[in-house]
């Protein structure tokens, strides 16, 4: 498919887009927390791929290139137009109500909590749990040291665990988390 796309076959490039659009769009969506912006960014990434297809060496390199470019562009956008983010240590207002353990709601709240993290740890968690990459692969994709990746993972997970497990002050996070976008809708 990659060889045919490299030869300039439009249908083959369409197949490449279909194969990778889930990953690229989902990374963009969870970085930017906005469906329209995520769609726009994901389209830009594929346009960039079309322009730079000759530099792609293999299917594995293609997946690596797409993840790297998507996250770098998302982080650039977040730097240019910063959203409201809360450092993990200060995210006390994002306590998840532990009495509501129904999975769809909890998943929605986990995504919302993730959306409040600073861009770098958010990208690390996405590559770990959405893309199923190991810390070495995450370090290569984000051009970080392995220790930084491990530190982001450790701190982010500890804080998430604390928020989920902590049922005290159950109403505190409801409003803030409830106003964040729901991917399903």
């Amino acid at each position, binding site marked *: 498919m990659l060889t045919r796309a490299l030869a*300039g076959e439009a249908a083959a490039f369409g197949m490449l*887009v279909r194969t990778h659009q*889930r990953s690229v769009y*989902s990374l963009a969506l969870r970085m930017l927390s906005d469906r329209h912006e995520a*769609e726009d960014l*994901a*389209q830009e990434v594929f346009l960039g791929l079309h322009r730079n297809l000759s530099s792609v060496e293999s299917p594995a390199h293609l997946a690596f290139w797409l993840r790297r470019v998507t996250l770098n562009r998302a982080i650039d956008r977040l730097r240019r137009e910063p959203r409201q983010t809360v450092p993990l240590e200060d995210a006390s207002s994002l306590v998840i109500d532990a009495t509501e353990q129904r999975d769809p709601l909890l998943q929605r709240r986990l995504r919302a909590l*993730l959306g409040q993290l600073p861009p770098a740890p958010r990208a690390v968690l996405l590559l770990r749990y959405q893309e199923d990459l190991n810390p070495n692969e995450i370090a290569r994709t984000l051009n970080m040291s392995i220790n930084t990746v491990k530190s982001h993972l450790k701190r982010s997970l500890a804080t*998430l*665990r604390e928020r989920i497990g902590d049922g005290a002050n159950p109403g505190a996070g409801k409003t803030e988390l409830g106003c964040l976008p729901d991917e399903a809708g």
Partner: protein
Amino acid sequence: MSNELNDRLRAALRPVDPGERFTQGVLARIAREPPRVPVAAQRAVRRVGLRWLSGALLAILATGFLVAHQWRAQHAQRGEAARQQVMEALRLTSEKLDLAYRVVKDKEHSGA
């Protein structure tokens, strides 16, 4: 708790497909872009271009070497001609001085 959180995160972060409309949107944007040379052709052009570039660089270097060599030879020739002119001038001057010396000596002898 740790495994449970991992499972919950994996479930919460399952990739979402933006749908066929997205694919069509990407392909439509690509179609609106100015036509591009196929990648194979781009690579061929790059290869040929690289060969031409290295050939041109070699030609420039060779020409530069030749020009420098010629300039140096001309410079040496001009230096040699100038040296010979100076030597000739010195020889002539010396002859004139000898002649003058002899005339003065002759006059001294005839006067005495």
